């Protein structure tokens, strides 16, 4: 069997490793666990570092290309670090009809950065994403795992203020 190369480099928490081993038991075919394993690594490290591909390939006994093609296909997987907080503004029609573009621009102004980019202080990354499936409370925004509903410009400024306060409290 191939040696788990880059194991020490992955630097995963013990509970992440446990979570990964448990996920693999859920499927009759190891390869099926790939999305769950990648999610676990991304939650632990904040992104998928370059050594992920080889490490997961060895873990699931796959050629690395099988991991690479998955990492590069799914929009939620990131190969670069992002800001401490991840702001995802919904771009699709129902949100746009009620001001989703304005909401996104408000966040861009508040953090002095642009969609798809991270603020200079590394605090937030703003992303304009496709439908978050909460069209009835448009415009919607996800900050990390939390959904915020009816986010007009005023509410966007409140959310931005809370994020700044939280950041100030940390230092």
């Amino acid at each position: 069997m191939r040696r788990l190369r880059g194991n020490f480099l992955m630097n995963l928490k013990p509970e992440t490793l446990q979570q990964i081993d448990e996920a693999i038991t859920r499927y009759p075919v190891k390869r099926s666990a790939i999305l769950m394993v990648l999610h676990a690594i991304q939650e632990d490290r904040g992104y998928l570092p370059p050594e992920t591909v080889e490490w997961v390939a060895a873990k699931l006994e796959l050629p690395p290309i099988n991991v690479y093609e998955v990492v590069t296909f799914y929009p939620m997987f990131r190969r670069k670090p992002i800001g401490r907080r991840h702001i995802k503004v919904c771009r699709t029609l129902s949100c746009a009809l009620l001001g989703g573009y304005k909401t996104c621009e408000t966040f861009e102004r508040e953090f002095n950065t642009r969609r798809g980019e991270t603020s200079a202080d590394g605090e937030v990354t703003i992303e304009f994403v496709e439908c978050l499936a909460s069209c009835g409370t448009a415009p919607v925004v996800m900050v990390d795992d939390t959904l915020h509903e009816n986010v007009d410009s005023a509410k966007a400024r409140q959310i931005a203020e809370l994020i700044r306060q939280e950041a100030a409290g940390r230092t």
Partner: protein
Amino acid sequence: MPAPAQRRIIFRHVDEPGYTNDLACYLRHGGYAMLRKALALAPAAIIDEVKRSGLRGRGGAGFGCGLKWTLVDRRSGKPIYLIVNADESEPGTFKDRHLIHQDPHQLIESIMITCWANGVQQAYIYIRGEFPEGARILERAIGEARAAGFVGPNIGGSNYGCEIYVHRGAGAYICGEETGLIESLEGKRPYPRIKPPFFPAVLGLYQCPTIVNNVETLCHVKHIVEIGGGEFAKIGTPNNTGTRIYCVSGHVRRPGCYEFEVGRITLGELLHEVCGGPLPGRRFKAVIPGGSSAKVLRFGDTFTLKNRDGSPRPLAVEDIPMDFDTMAACGTMGGSGGVIVMDDSVNMVEALANLNAFYAHESCGQCTPCREGSLWMKKITHRLVHGQARAEDGALLKSVADQIAGRTVCAFGEACAWPTQSFVAKFGEEFQAYPETKRSPRPEGAGALV
């Protein structure tokens, strides 16, 4: 005549004060009694009830649920899998969040009944990546159900055992397509499979017979076991039985999810009475009745259908019943039940540009007509909106869309072509006007859509 009242069956406990999503609350409300009842019935009898109920899939295509179950290959000797499609990502559709967050045990009980009826011993819930909270709620609920003996080995003291696992997607719309979903669950890129000849019922997950059902469809199963297929078939209208969740979003006063008997309410009643009509000072202009892929309807248009006796049946957009069949006869579809409303502040070229950006982003790239065509359509509408319109753009859009639909492995080809085809056909004058004005005359107070 006032609009009919909601008939909340699968939404009975959604937004109910004091109702929580834990097992104790579910049991207090009679939970898992239908699983016990089902385990005492022969599997074939349950499938018969579901067939009798006339339940059609709520994901978009409206395929008969009982028929789907009947098509499963039971002689292969291979295990049969159930996959719950909780990858709800059709823009305009937002019911799964409520069903999963507020009543996860209803879904789990229905899954277990379905598994028993079909001899399934392993079920996967494929939940979209953007629902991390929903995934945690389901994991916890499955854990509770397992501890109480409703999931796992020897269910309810019987010899029958079945496991449910939660599997998270990662933000790809195409995973809602059932064979794309299967590929994704196998750990690959979600490129949809060619069908026919082989459907998932024969060769699905790991080349084993597989059932893929939508969350809303499955939630009905426990209620069919409760009241019987015959009684269920009396709800709604013939061939469009049961209830549906209509998700209304966009320019109405009271957007939200509403459960009605299928076809017993018209589009006009839903929008004007249930949702409170247009925003102050506005008029309805257009509506997409079944998720963003459904063809758009223009207010003011009328359709002439036929009554049973052959006499003409004129229908205004407001008069169209919210069902599968009449919607199809009017050239659109009931689809996923996502109703997106646009008022007279909307520039239809911009609205289409918004949708085209979505489809260009979400095309999986497997088939050339869709991969290239969806991007071309995005670029053409983009240049229209940004002041570089050409006289031929309307016709060009239609030509591109016409060459995608019907030429791809999966229905995404149609899904991305239908908005363009219908927007250009029904609002042609807005596309025509572009070459002269060069820049969209965005109505006052309207926000940007692209």
